């Protein structure tokens, strides 16, 4: 902070500052151009359907949880329950409402998740911290139970698995791997921009005030009830849309147990490793969780296949992955986003 203030005093650095301000939106556009223009040219089917889509979807889920936990300070291990609600609700809207457009069903799926989020967010008005974790755990178990029990929700499929509808957006068939990527990317970009604006708005500031000290926030006139429930609603909306994308754009099929507690923890780890209270951190964390195991596996199979027993090779990868998480967290408890920020400040100045 002080660095920026001092810079502001000298005319030379002021110019740099202005340039940076100009460059900032430019970078946004450059990034979008890369994501929409360059990546599709370089990417293969494997990259789209096995790496980029799950990365984008988990980033979105991470972003959702980050809004709740990182910005509003409410702990939750129910993210994958909200993902499940989003997936199954979107599926049912598409199945049962004739002519329902895909994007509308995604929004409706998100809204259904938001509704449930508000319901399970109610206890947050009375309880905090680990006790709230237990209450969100209830959401996790309740949703899985309900989806398993009520077979109508999975169109009476005997094994409780829903299969993705055909992916059409405004008459364009998006069922190819690149199409699925564009669908996910489009949704993620829109929601990320919204999230950025949201956390910089009065709502975001009130969330952070609640997070840092809710009594003080209440004294300042922030409505705690509204802030907390809004955080739950918006976070669950993001998770719900992510869940629908996970089912439709990524796996193409999903069962209730695909959204189990492990997935909730995975999303929690994404934001812890990526950086709490940081939009970019969600993307960093998802990249770490999705890409690193695949990278390790590829390196291992390329160099050690046939030499080392495949089972031992797998266990070695797990050890390496776990140790790297510990290493990163010891080195930088505030996550990869902070690590990157420090790195950049050192390089760029």
């Amino acid at each position: 902070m002080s660095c920026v203030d001092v810079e502001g005093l000298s005319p030379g650095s002021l110019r740099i500052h202005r340039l940076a301000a100009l460059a900032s939106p430019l970078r946004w556009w450059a990034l979008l151009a890369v994501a929409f223009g360059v990546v599709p040219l370089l990417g293969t089917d494997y990259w789209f359907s096995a790496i980029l889509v799950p990365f984008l979807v988990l980033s979105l889920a991470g972003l959702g949880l980050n809004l709740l936990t990182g910005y509003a300070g409410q702990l939750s291990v129910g993210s994958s329950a909200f993902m499940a609600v989003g997936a199954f609700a979107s599926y049912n809207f598409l199945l049962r409402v004739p002519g329902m457009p895909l994007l509308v069903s995604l929004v409706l799926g998100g809204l259904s998740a938001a509704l449930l989020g508000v319901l399970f967010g109610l206890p947050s008005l009375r309880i905090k911290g680990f006790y709230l974790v237990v209450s969100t755990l209830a959401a996790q178990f309740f949703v899985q139970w309900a989806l398993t029990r009520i077979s109508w929700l999975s169109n009476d499929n005997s094994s409780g698995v829903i299969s993705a509808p055909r992916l059409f957006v405004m008459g364009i068939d998006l069922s190819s791997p690149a199409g699925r990527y564009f669908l996910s990317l489009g949704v993620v970009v829109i929601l990320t921009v919204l999230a950025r604006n949201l956390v910089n708005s009065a709502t975001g500031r009130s969330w952070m005030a609640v997070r840092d000290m809710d009594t003080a926030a209440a004294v300042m006139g922030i409505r705690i009830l509204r802030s907390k429930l809004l955080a739950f609603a918006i976070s669950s909306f993001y998770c719900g849309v992510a869940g629908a994308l996970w089912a439709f754009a990524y796996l193409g099929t999903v069962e209730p147990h695909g959204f189990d507690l492990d997935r909730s923890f995975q999303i929690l780890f994404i934001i812890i490793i990526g950086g709490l209270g940081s939009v970019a951190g969600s993307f960093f964390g998802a990249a770490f969780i999705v890409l690193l195991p695949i990278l390790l596996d590829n390196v291992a199979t390329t160099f050690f296949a046939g030499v080392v027993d495949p089972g031992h090779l797998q266990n070695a990868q797990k050890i390496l992955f776990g140790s790297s998480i510990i290493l990163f967290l010891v080195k930088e408890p505030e996550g990869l986003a902070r690590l990157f920020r420090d790195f950049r400040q050192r390089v760029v100045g």
Partner: protein
Amino acid sequence: MKRWVRRLEIIALASQLGFCASCNAARTHNEQASPARSAAPATPAVLINAPEQYFPLQSYRVGPYAAGGTGFFGGTIDYFNLVNLRDGGVGGVKLTWSECETEYVVERGVECYERLKKGLNGAPAAATNPLSVGIAYATLDRSTVDKIPLITINHGRTDSTDGRIFPYVFPLQLNPYSEVSAIVNYVAQKEGGLDKLAGKKIVTLYHGSPYGKETRPVLDLLAKKYAFEIKHIEVPHPGNEQQSQWLEIKRWQPAWVILRGWGVMNPVAIKTAAKTGFPVDHLIGNIWSNSEEDVRPAGAVGKGFISITTHPSGANFPVVQEIKKYVVDAGKGNLEDVKRFGSVYYNLGVINGILNVEAVRIAQAKYGKKPLTGEQTRWGFENLNIDDARLKELGALGLLQRIKLSCDDHEGGGRIRFQQWDGDKWVLISDWVEADRALLRPIIEASAAKYAQEKNIKPRDCASEVPL
């Protein structure tokens, strides 16, 4: 400050995508350069030139289901090795394969599918064998689009038996409906006839997964038809705690319990049954509750436990002996623990290997002795016809059942035998018991038709398919 943060975040995002793109090039390169996995006998330089048929193996060697994965994939790989070492491949085309660890997790399985589907060093992929219902469901549509047969031996999505709507999916030998139908027929035999089932109480204790749930409707149907009472009790994955389920069973006092377990759930079920006083010789393990690894950890109380099998365990079959001679004794066996040679999972892997290789052989008769595409091997699977004479040639008589597939029947077998644990090994206690496939067919067709409607699939006309 805020602006700085924003800039950094943008750069962060950009760098991630840049990182992905550069990895992409590296990955493709690595994939092409990577040597064949496991005990492939030739060097990579030779591999590129020789014609080869590739099998992508989405295996699992760690995690709660590692016992199933290592046994099954060990058996399949050993059989592939036998075909290479003894016969020089199929019709002169050597078999090659590589493994990708799924841990039985759906998204890892999908990643593996996408990674391996393109073949290896130019050798095209013949078929995928994920040995996981979840992964099979998730790669079902992909397999159809990519035209690579998806083999789900003894498991899978039941309605994929209808090959008119699922042209690329093969629940070989025994689909889940046939499995429970045959079990009910066996129970009827024990009770003295199908008419004696009336009023009997039967419980299915099932694994809380798509696999476990799959048979609920057909059991309800059979219960209605034969007037027995059925109660479905779910055990949540992974199933290492079943106290409440078994107390419920104790209260209800059923005559039989059908165990549709998987992995650690099985020994826990046997132990808890014994603890709550349920006789284990009235507990019938299904096709994934039938291995040595399922009952041995239960200890002494496992004695008397009954299970079904499509293939006996044991190493006395000629084909298994040949594997021992050519592969295992040559130090190329895939099993880490040699004591598991000839076990249930291992032998299942062997017969899965046989069925895959036979499909390639049959397809070669039509398309020529060269590496075949998935579309061509699909024709081979669809025209699989292994009779007793062929089984004898294969050295698998008594190990594998007669099997005949067709365009509209992708299952082809539907017979099981029952075995009982004597405390040390499985002993066969019944002849082949048939499933009531005629009764099941209409439900399978109805379910497949519903899927076709949901997905807007036009069923194939099997009359226009060219037979062998």
